[in-house]
């Protein structure tokens, strides 16, 4: 494979890939030690072939997340019917059990959350809940619904006998909705409204854009909506314009119209909602996007010096609030120079070649 006549024979590309794959596995479940990091860095910097092989294996490893979708194929009605039909025809042995236990992973948040009392008034119950930058909070409501507030978020809750009206003032929240057809659950955000019957979804306000991700069930999106008035018993009657209904695994960004519509594989969906576990998970996003995401959780201003560095793909996860861990990882793993300009200003730049 190599034409060079080096005295030391180059290891076969496959051996290098095997080593790279071993490193990918070592980092996989977050059990790498500081010693591993140092050893990895030495190995990776030993040759460009090593670095490239690691990139290739790491990218393929991430891409393999897509096969989680096969679970949906296996569980699809027509497939189940086909298996049943073939079983009767004698074309099938016994059902295997290994994969039978593979249930959907997005269970509704359990845990010891405080049930927040809404303020009872003549026209229903109300409450406003906020989180500061870097803070997260779960609000459990008496009807069994729960709202998980991400960093720097404010929601207004208004429950009346005929409607459950939530206004997302800013930030991002995940709603687990207790089913009740007679009392629709609507999240107002900017010009948009997201209506659910019994489902779970997240809504994020990005400027005027409303970003909705459905984890369970189905929601209806509409525009031209206005948040309910202070003492409203029912939503405003001004007809909002219905846009579209989206269901589990779908993501829509909209304001006046649908700006973006996408289906998200289960593994990526988990990643997108990983903030609910207090974890930010990345799988190949550009450093610039990672920084903009991380910046929501910290008051530290993070500056990226250099276009090429902005495009650096980042894989990994960090705990909400552990921004310093990210700087450390970038410095050790990717030769990024981290300079603290001031207490709340950090500059990232490409380290000079050694």
């Amino acid at each position, binding site marked *: 494979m190599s034409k060079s006549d080096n005295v030391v024979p180059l290891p076969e590309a*496959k051996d290098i890939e095997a080593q790279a*794959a*071993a490193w990918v*596995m*070592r*980092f996989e*479940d*977050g*059990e*790498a030690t*500081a010693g591993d*990091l140092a050893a990895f860095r030495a190995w990776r910097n030993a040759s460009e072939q090593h670095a490239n092989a690691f*990139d290739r294996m*790491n*990218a*393929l490893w991430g*891409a*393999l997340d*897509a*096969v989680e*979708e*096969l*679970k949906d*194929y296996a569980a699809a009605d027509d*497939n189940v019917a*086909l*298996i049943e039909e*073939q*079983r009767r*025809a004698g*074309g*099938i042995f*016994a*059902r*295997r059990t290994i994969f039978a*236990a*593979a249930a959907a*992973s997005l269970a509704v948040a359990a845990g010891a959350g405080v049930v927040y009392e809404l303020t009872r008034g003549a026209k229903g119950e109300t409450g406003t809940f906020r989180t500061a930058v870097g803070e997260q909070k779960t609000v459990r409501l008496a009807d069994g619904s729960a709202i998980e507030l991400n960093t720097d978020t404010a929601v207004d809750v208004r429950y009346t006998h005929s409607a459950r009206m939530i206004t997302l003032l800013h930030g991002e929240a995940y709603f687990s909705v207790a089913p009740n057809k007679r009392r629709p659950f609507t999240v107002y955000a900017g010009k948009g409204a997201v209506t659910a019957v019994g489902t779970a979804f997240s809504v994020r306000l990005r400027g005027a854009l409303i970003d909705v991700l459905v984890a369970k069930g189905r929601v209806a999106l509409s525009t031209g909506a206005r948040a309910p008035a202070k003492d409203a018993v029912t939503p405003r009657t001004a007809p909002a314009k*219905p*846009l579209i209904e989206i269901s589990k695994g779908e993501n829509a960004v909209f304001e006046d119209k*649908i700006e973006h*519509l996408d289906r998200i*594989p289960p*593994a*990526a969906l*988990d*990643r*997108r909602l990983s903030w609910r576990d207090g974890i930010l998970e990345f*799988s*190949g996003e*550009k450093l610039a*996007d990672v920084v903009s995401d991380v910046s929501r959780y910290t008051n530290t201003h993070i500056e990226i010096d250099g276009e*090429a560095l902005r495009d*650096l793909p*980042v*894989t990994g*996860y960090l*705990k909400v609030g552990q921004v310093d861990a990210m700087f450390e*990882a*970038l410095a050790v793993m990717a030769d990024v120079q981290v300079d603290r300009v001031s207490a709340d200003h950090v500059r990232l730049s490409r380290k000079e070649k050694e």
Partner: protein
Amino acid sequence: MSEILQAFIENERAIRRIFARYCSRAEDVEDLTQETFLKCFAAEMTTDIREPKAFLLRAAKNLALSELKRKANKTTSFIEDSGGPDVLGNDGQVSVEADIDGRRKLVALAKAIASLPAPHRRALLMRKMENLKIRQIAKRLNVSVSTVEKRVAAALVMCASYLRAEGYDLAEFGAAAFAPVQRKPGDAASVIAMTPQTGARSPDGSKRHE
């Protein structure tokens, strides 16, 4: 190699002929043929299939029929679902193309996995399909963590070899599921693995209430 993949390779032409009777576009025939493989491979993971060939052909016929039905209903259901024919505009189109592209990648990856020896296939699927942690897989298979690590690492290398042998450029799979990475050739050291040493996750995968 999985029996379904073996049977699929042997009967791919027959399956294609089934769809050719219903679809005029070669592209649709190809997509439905590959879809048949996906469905049957998924079924193989929950079930022991005694007659893979019969199973594949039956699945193909069912798929062809439901495709016919879907086409017949397409226009009306689209309008009902979206609240109007103009709502989606061009975005819907882009999304459909992205979906097909994703489907093709899934087919390639599924075939790569199907081509693995059974122990490797099983370990990789437990990790990627069932979403089990290495530690959990080791427990279930009653082997050591290092054995599982080695087995899955070997599976990854074999998948890479398979995809290359099938003529795929591995860079095509570099795009992450929700944020495509534009990788330039020669762009060295572009992936980092950020692993806070404090351990953001406990080994059993539980993350809450630490």
